[in-house]
């Protein structure tokens, strides 16, 4: 009796130790998965960065570590030989205006969908979902036809009008899904808060600006970032709409694409340099607001 009592703890510890691998199986598996994913994602990024500092002409001769290392060569030719600066300004102006417009619309429409009940509410929400189903590419011809039928291309300020046109389209694209996201976030804020503020004497506008807006801030940031990134990453629509225009009026994506379009004449290293520069603003934005992004996407407006 006494013996077993003495033996038991030791044996137990041993078997627990033996189970160490088994117990941490899940952890090990997740780490392996994460590391593999990280490599898959990081490798191309590194490759791009490396080739931005490599002076050479073909993609095939590019090795991972630069052969003819130069800090500035590719960037110089980017600014001297192409209209990179105007692509850059075009793109970020487009992005910022789109971001501001869509965010304002989404913040208000999400509030309305979440807090008001009116006859067409259900069908309006439904149509937001249905719009998502249609692939955005399928409307391109229609967009082009629309743009030319309202006389954008025949006007003197064709470039400006095209950009305004694109801003409106990106804004519209940015509001559908994001309105649903935003509505969900407003929904996570208990109605009790609105009612409590109402009894405290707040007007509808004060409830919106003083109670709800501060609480949905994380989601506003997330949506602003989404809307900001949308136009930067898009190539199909600008390619369609500004194909015939001068080099100055291109967006980053279209302009950079032009650098590598032609197999014989392409310059992959200059392209890589342009891509690295183009990535800086989004990376900074992500870095600055990473807490908001994680918080906004994972938790509701009111915690504990």
């Amino acid at each position, binding site marked *: 009796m006494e013996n077993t009592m003495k033996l038991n703890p030791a044996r137990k510890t041993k078997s627990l130790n033996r189970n160490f691998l088994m117990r941490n199986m899940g952890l090990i598996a997740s780490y392996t998965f994460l590391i593999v994913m990280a490599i898959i994602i990081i490798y191309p990024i590194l490759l791009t960065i490396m080739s931005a500092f490599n002076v050479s002409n073909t993609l095939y001769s590019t090795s991972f570590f630069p052969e003819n290392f130069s800090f500035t060569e590719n960037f110089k030719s980017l600014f001297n030989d192409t209209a990179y600066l105007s692509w850059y300004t075009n793109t970020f102006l487009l992005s910022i205006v789109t971001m501001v417009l869509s965010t304002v619309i989404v913040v208000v429409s999400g509030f309305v969908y979440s807090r008001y009940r009116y006859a067409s509410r259900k069908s309006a929400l439904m149509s937001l979902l249905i719009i998502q189903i249609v692939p955005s590419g399928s409307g391109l011809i229609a967009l082009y036809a629309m743009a030319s039928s309202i006389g954008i291309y025949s006007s003197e300020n064709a470039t400006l009008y095209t950009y305004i046109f694109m801003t409106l389209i990106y804004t519209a694209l940015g509001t559908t899904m994001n309105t649903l996201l935003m509505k969900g976030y407003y929904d996570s804020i*208990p109605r*009790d*808060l609105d*009612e*409590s*503020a*109402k*009894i*405290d*004497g*707040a*007007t509808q506008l*004060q409830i919106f600006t003083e*109670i709800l807006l*501060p*609480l949905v801030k994380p989601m506003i940031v997330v949506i602003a970032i989404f809307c900001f990134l949308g136009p930067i990453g898009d190539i199909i629509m600008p390619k369609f709409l500004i194909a015939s225009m001068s080099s100055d009026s291109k967006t980053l994506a279209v302009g950079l694409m032009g650098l590598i379009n032609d197999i014989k004449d392409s310059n992959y290293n200059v392209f890589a340099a342009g891509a690295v520069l183009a990535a800086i603003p989004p990376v900074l934005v992500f870095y600055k607001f990473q807490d908001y992004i994680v918080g906004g996407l994972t938790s509701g*407006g*009111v*915690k*504990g």
Partner: protein
Amino acid sequence: MSKISLRNIVKKYPNAEHCSVSDFNLDIEEGEFIVLVGPSGCGKSTTLRMIAGLEDITSGEFILDGEVVNNVSSKDRDIAMVFQSYALYPHMSVRENVGYGLKLRNYPAETTKKQVDEISKDLFLTQYLERKPKELSGGQRQRVALGRAMVRTPKLYLMDEPLSNLDAKLRTTTRSEISRMHRAKGAITIYVTHDQVEAMTMADRIVLMSMGEVQQIGSPKELFTNPKNCFVATFMGMPSMNLIEGSYKAGNFSCDSFTIAVSDTDKKILDDAGYDGKSLFLGARSSAIRSGKKYEEAFPNSCFETTAMNVEYLGDSVNVFFNAEPNNLFVGTLGTGEREVEVDEKVTLVLDNTKLHFFDSETEESIKYTINQVK
């Protein structure tokens, strides 16, 4: 003229089949503490929310200071409300939470600060003023919610189960805190709870509701001693009143388990009301069930022998459960000095027949209600 009148208030939610509140009538005088009590889903919150202006009144009139205010918005009704969830603004500090109502009413900053400081001192919140709600315990949050209401002096305080998220001890202390605040402020308070103990201890008048209908309105004592029907009788009081079905004949009430004589006054009432030879419900609070020589001598005709099924020790007293067909368990509370009962022991119990209630077996209305009311 009453300060507040609710006339034939009806609430039917747009997509609901039945009315959530039907024909609610109540006049409230200056300074009264009214408790709306009833089981969950009986329409208490709905009633309160109509008074607050958070819910439309389907039909009927809500009169405040002689004016019909059905369509006046909440913010112009001059009320303060404590929510069950507290509904503190998560992004504001305690100070901002408490002062928000004053700020919206354009009080000067110093006045706001002074009033917030004062109320916080009253509620022991001074050291938490700069914290956010999520950094507070449940009890502290509850006090902030109270403070937010109490910092103003509105015509009307509304509270919807403000204590239901607190533990039992805190509930008792906060209960008396609210009563004290009410006396200090003197404004009408309408308090919603499902807990009859809160209703009994706090109310000037209780409004007991069930299924959207008012069952009885009266002081705690009235509801306890003269319940209008079976529902009121069993809802008020802990443990709840024993009801047992049986028949009455010539001064005797008999059920499957026992036969007892009713008191002379009760006999007259029952005979006059024409219940001789009819079935009815006998209602007896556990405190009317006693044991011991003293009681056997006092009520020799209402003793019966039974077996204790279970015994609950409560410190000062003991709850004894015993079988009384056709209803399964009957409970008596024996106080100190009475005999100690063991489980499975045979005991002689005495029904104090001066404290009995009788209910019509069909309508479940109290037979003695109107007679007692006149007294």
